[in-house]
């Protein structure tokens, strides 16, 4: 039983982690492409249109990967988590179906025009298509976050006589405060990935001295957005999200921080390795009182420690949760430093000649992916042992009729298939970037 459960968890974790590598770029990039198309429409400068077309091509490759790896997510609710689906499908099915009706149709229609329709439609309709794709993908994000937010913080339902979960108020479900905090944080994270990507390619072209005109354009567009989104990741969105976790999931907060002993004026652990068996943090590097401050807004606030919570309610993988949280926060801080100094240099007219900034911008590309992935691991590992927080345990939700052997078979199948996809994807992306905007047709 234990192994089947673990395999079903790994199955979902692997496929969703891989899937989210693509939407986190395309959602943010849809915004940037829309901005480029808008600038083209307003100035008539064809460089903006070419730049947009270049990013549309990269977008297309990523979008295709996002679509094909996204379909398994909806299926897996039924295939691997049937007990959960049977209980909660009447609630979360609403938002999943809304995603299909309201965002996928919008997205796919306008993507067809954006990708294939440049010669068939006017510049204005092509601009409209970029708006449609942007709205569609951001709506899609909303419905998924609303679904996850309900699992994090269920509202708008009641429990029936046989333990079934019955939707009581669709509006309460859709107006879940957790949804909006998580949505703001996640979408800003997507903009960080996309703007850092645009900056990285811009820096690449400048350092290489190829397509330099576009390199400068990408940096002029990307750096301010990278700076703004990186700051917004911490304040206000990260701050709101953190306070929400502190209030509603104090166990998760304690586990994220490796905080065992309840106390007031609790320090923030910057570094250290949690030893769950001995209930302590080894080699800690601490900043006094800061955890109290960021969790509750007061220097001396009391923060509950894990020791005051029954062991069976602890998240079951505290070290991974702890490291995910610290990687996310650490990288987020570095993004603020890099993007703000790049922004200052850009305003002073020094960025394009500054190897000291262009190199870090070039190398920054993978790190927002890591930070976003780590952020999701914080959210989902922090929710454990619950599948629906306070309502249903993860161990009660999986498909018990699907044996460990069958789950492993399909997990290995996905791993093999995704390995092949990764190689193809990297090859095509590299080729497109090497061709550059001037070769884009």
């Amino acid at each position: 039983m234990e192994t089947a459960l673990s395999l079903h968890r790994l199955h979902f974790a692997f496929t969703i982690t891989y899937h989210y590598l693509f939407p986190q770029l395309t959602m943010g990039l849809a915004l940037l492409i829309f901005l480029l198309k808008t600038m083209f429409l307003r100035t008539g400068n064809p460089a903006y249109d070419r730049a947009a077309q270049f990013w549309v091509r990269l977008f297309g490759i990523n979008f295709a990967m996002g679509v094909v790896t996204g379909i398994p997510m909806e299926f897996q609710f039924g295939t691997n988590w049937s007990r959960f689906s049977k209980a909660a499908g009447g609630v979360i099915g609403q938002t999943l179906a809304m995603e299909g009706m309201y965002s996928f149709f919008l997205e796919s229609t306008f993507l067809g025009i954006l990708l294939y329709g440049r010669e068939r439609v006017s510049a204005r309709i092509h601009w409209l298509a970029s708006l449609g794709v942007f709205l569609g993908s951001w709506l899609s994000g909303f419905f998924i976050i609303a679904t996850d937010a309900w699992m994090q913080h269920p509202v708008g339902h009641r429990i029936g006589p046989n333990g079934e979960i019955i939707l009581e108020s669709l509006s309460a479900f859709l107006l879940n405060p957790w949804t909006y905090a998580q949505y703001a944080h996640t979408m800003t994270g997507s903009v960080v990935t996309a703007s850092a990507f645009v900056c990285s390619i811009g820096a690449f072209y400048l350092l290489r001295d190829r397509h330099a005109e576009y390199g400068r354009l990408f940096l002029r567009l990307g750096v301010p957005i990278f700076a703004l989104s990186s700051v917004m990741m911490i304040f206000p969105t990260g701050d709101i999200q953190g306070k929400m976790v502190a209030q509603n999931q104090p166990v998760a907060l304690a586990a994220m921080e490796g905080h065992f002993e309840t106390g007031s004026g609790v320090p923030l652990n910057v570094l250290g390795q949690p030893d769950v068996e001995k209930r302590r943090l080894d080699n800690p590097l601490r900043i006094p009182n800061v955890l109290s401050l960021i969790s509750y807004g007061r220097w001396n606030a009391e923060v509950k420690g894990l020791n005051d919570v029954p062991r069976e309610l602890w998240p079951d993988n505290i070290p991974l949760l702890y490291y995910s949280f610290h990687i996310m926060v650490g990288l987020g801080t570095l993004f603020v430093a890099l993007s703000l100094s790049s922004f200052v240099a850009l305003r002073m007219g020094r960025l394009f000649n500054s190897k000291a900034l262009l190199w870090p911008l070039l190398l920054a590309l993978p790190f927002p992916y890591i930070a976003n992935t780590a952020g999701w691991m914080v959210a989902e590992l922090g929710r454990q042992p619950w599948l629906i927080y306070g309502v249903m345990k993860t161990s009660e939700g999986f498909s018990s009729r699907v044996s460990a052997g069958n789950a492993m078979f399909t997990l290995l199948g996905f791993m093999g298939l995704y390995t092949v996809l990764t190689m193809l994807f990297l090859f095509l992306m590299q080729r497109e970037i090497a061709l550059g905007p001037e070769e884009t047709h």
Partner: protein
Amino acid sequence: METLWFCLVALTIAAYVILDGFDLGAGAVHFLLGKNSEERETLLETIGPFWDGNEVWLLAGGGTLYFAFPTLYASAFEGFYLPLMMVLWLLILRGIAIEFRHQMHDVLWTPAWDAVFCGASAALPVFFGAALGNVVRGVPLDSNREFFLPLWTNFRVSAEPGVLDWYTILVGLLALAALAMHGALWIRLKTYEPIAGRAASLASRLWVCVAALTAIVTVASFQIRPALLRNFVEHPWGFVFPALALGGLALAGTRKSFLASCGYLAGMLCSVVFSVYPEVLPASPGHEPLTVHNAAAPDYGLRAGLVWWIPGLILAIGYATFLYRRFSGKAGKPAATSNSLRG
């Protein structure tokens, strides 16, 4: 309320079969109609802007099924675990093939994706057909309303069924033939000579298979599950569905009409849906089936769903109309013009 949602889910699935059906079918006959790389590119252009939107009907149908009939979604997806996972792999390979093929013109790259596209497109209808066959035949639901089917057992329609037995394979083959014909008729509509002519004659040959398999599968279905007749006897108006299927089939053969083929597919699907109602997942003999009543979500959710679902559907139809209008006309170039261009 449950019955209304039953119809809406059936409508969405019918839209999926008709729309994604033509691009799946076009893929299945990819090599039969496209004799060289250039022709095959033209074939892909006929579905290029549409296939993704068409596939969304599957996701929309799945999502709708999920919230309206969560018990059915959970039971069926768990029970058909292995074939569904394979469907996912095929959908992934096919989507990637369509989107990656045109990224590069290369003598190895292009034909490799053609083969993947064709193979996956031909396999998917067989899976979908077999799934429908499983629904008609029934599955061994336990008291928790759960089951798990192996891919196959002894290929007989027996007390220990597998996903594949002679009956479900037969339905799978019918689905392949019907969608291949559907796809060929689409291509005939959307291309110039010589591809269009080739598509027309292929559609005629496929029509014979479709007609023969339709007859065999119909007889076999009533043999396996005589109860299918009950709704037709009690509500004779239901005969409009088989009539639609037969009429569509006749016109698809004589007039080579794509629209008639849509009618055939819709008629066949509705006939099945009508004949199993109120069951949504029939059970093997001796087991309790899932019906619209015991598989549906509570009433409030179904009512609330109507409020946003119907406008969503209207929007979706609007987008589809817009897209198909924008990309109306044929793909590729008329034979005469392209010759003179090459001069």
